[in-house]
């Protein structure tokens, strides 16, 4: 039914909805892997699909979370890491091209409002309760379109309200600070443990599996800085 080594007998759509619901409820990856493996083995033994045997994946996950442990959330620490990383990404993309080209840093009110609003959205998403995140994952295209248009309208209105004027500053200190924040944010995300909490099969707690989880966490944490640096490099070449 599926090539997923964790749950080869479970329909991938059922599996994804089940894992997503448990993730939204902060169940640790090891416990998610345990529950998923149990579903898989039952489907294989009973020769039934997951919907027939377990019903709706979201309802089943909700029933399980009554007795499953949940990961201790540290909303402030987690959101601080995300906000620092977001500042680093925005800063690098914005400041590196003029720095590499030897130009001063130029900003406008539109850019400043965009940065502030982006940080606000990042912080709100980090602190949002599970029902809000669940709604976002199931939103239809027109709901996403309305939400996106709303953000764009707010952005435009705030830009008009902000004082106009062209600001110039030396690019070097801002570029170095952005690079520092990019690295600090990536390290904080990795150290927070969120990126290392993989869904693991039962018994996969050996040193090899844990090493793999750490490697994946490092790669995930490094991916965003690498993309930001590539973007900044490309922009520097285009604006030379």
């Amino acid at each position, binding site marked *: 039914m599926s090539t997923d080594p964790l749950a080869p007998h479970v329909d991938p759509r059922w599996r994804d909805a089940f894992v997503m619901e448990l993730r939204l409820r902060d169940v640790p990856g090891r416990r998610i892997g345990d529950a998923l493996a*149990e579903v898989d083995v039952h489907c294989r033994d009973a020769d039934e699909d997951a919907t*027939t045997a*377990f019903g709706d994946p979201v309802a089943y996950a909700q029933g399980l979370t009554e007795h499953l442990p949940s990961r201790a959330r540290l909303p402030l620490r987690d959101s601080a890491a995300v906000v620092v990383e977001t500042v680093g990404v925005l800063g690098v993309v914005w400041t590196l091209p003029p720095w590499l080209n030897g130009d001063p840093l130029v900003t406008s009110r539109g850019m400043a409002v965009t940065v502030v609003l982006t940080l606000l959205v990042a912080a709100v998403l980090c602190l949002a309760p599970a029902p809000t995140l669940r709604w976002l994952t199931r939103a239809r295209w027109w709901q996403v379109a309305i939400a996106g248009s709303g953000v764009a309208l707010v952005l435009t209105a705030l830009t008009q309200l902000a004082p106009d004027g062209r600001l110039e500053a030396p690019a070097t200190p801002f570029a170095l600070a952005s690079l520092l924040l990019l690295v600090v944010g990536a390290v904080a995300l990795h150290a927070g443990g969120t990126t290392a909490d993989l869904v693991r099969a039962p018994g996969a707690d050996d040193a090899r599996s844990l090493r793999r989880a750490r490697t994946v966490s490092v790669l995930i944490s490094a991916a965003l800085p690498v993309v930001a640096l590539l973007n900044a490099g490309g922009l520097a070449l285009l604006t030379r």
Partner: protein
Amino acid sequence: MSRRPAPPDPVGDGTATPDGADWPGEWLRGVLSLCALRVLADGATYGYDIAQRLAAAGLGEIKGGTLYPLLGRLHAAGLLDEEWRPGDGGPGRKYYALTDAGRAHLHDEGARWSRFADLTQTFVTRPEAAR
């Protein structure tokens, strides 16, 4: 002509018993924990086997969506131990076993259930008073 009201939903998506009857879900919900513990009193086993034995006992088909949350609650209450055991050339299964507390619970609650069942049977089947 009046129609009979539909019976309450059975546990899972239908609990057809050997005599063709469907046990109402609300009856099964009250006794399923004890029945699962009773299966495990015969020795450690895995979820699907528990479901099979319950079906063979006439309780009907217990769906995985009902059985595993129940086993999870019993484990969280300290009445069951759980352990993944490797399979023969395939993926393993999670085995459940009674703890001492589970065995004591089965003994005590089994006796109480027996008294309750006797009481309700006597009450429900006693002759109706003449009006």
